[in-house]
């Protein structure tokens, strides 16, 4: 099992990757900055299992909080509006606080 590398509250960025295959990370989050909320689970990698492979070792899945205005530059709602997205750890990279 892969040991979780993040902690709740930590700032992260979703990698801006665009592979042609099965991705579990929504397009609208890629390259965006968020903050770790908590660990959901540690699961076999669905991006491997989608092609008939075992997806082992299992990978951590994090709930990541994004500000709506970070995801949508033209967002007009209140600044406090957020979205929580489940993201598999290989898609996340740590950011310095305030980064």
């Amino acid at each position: 099992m892969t040991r979780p590398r993040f902690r709740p509250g930590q700032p992260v960025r979703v990698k801006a990757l665009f592979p042609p295959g099965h991705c579990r990370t929504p397009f609208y989050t890629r390259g965006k900055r968020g903050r770790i909320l908590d660990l959901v689970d540690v699961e076999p990698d669905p991006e491997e299992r989608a092609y008939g492979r075992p997806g082992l070792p299992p990978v951590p899945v994090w709930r990541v909080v994004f500000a709506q205005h970070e995801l949508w530059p033209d967002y007009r709602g209140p600044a406090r509006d957020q979205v929580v997205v489940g993201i598999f750890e290989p898609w996340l990279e740590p950011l310095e606080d305030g980064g």
Partner: protein
Amino acid sequence: MRRHHDMGGLPAGPVERSEHEHAPWEKKVDAILRLLVAKKIMTLDELRRGIEELGPGAYDELSYFERWIRSIANVLLEKGVFGVHELGLAIEAAEARRAAAEACPKTVPAP
């Protein structure tokens, strides 16, 4: 860049919230998938990947369970669970059974 199914945040009209009955064939598709997963013949991730690979045209035109059964068929073909010709013959046989049932509904029991 953005794949067709990955439509989060794009305009897509209102969400259909009404409950509806499932047709018997839709329940059968669900049962087939559950069996395939329970017997470890395929995974839900393969189902999803297969649906994504239907491409923009079929993805929009097919209903929910039509996407499922198309994906299931393609994944099982990839895995060699059955062959293209075998599947073609099975579909032909199923269509013949349906035609017989419609011609004489009282004497043909449901399979």
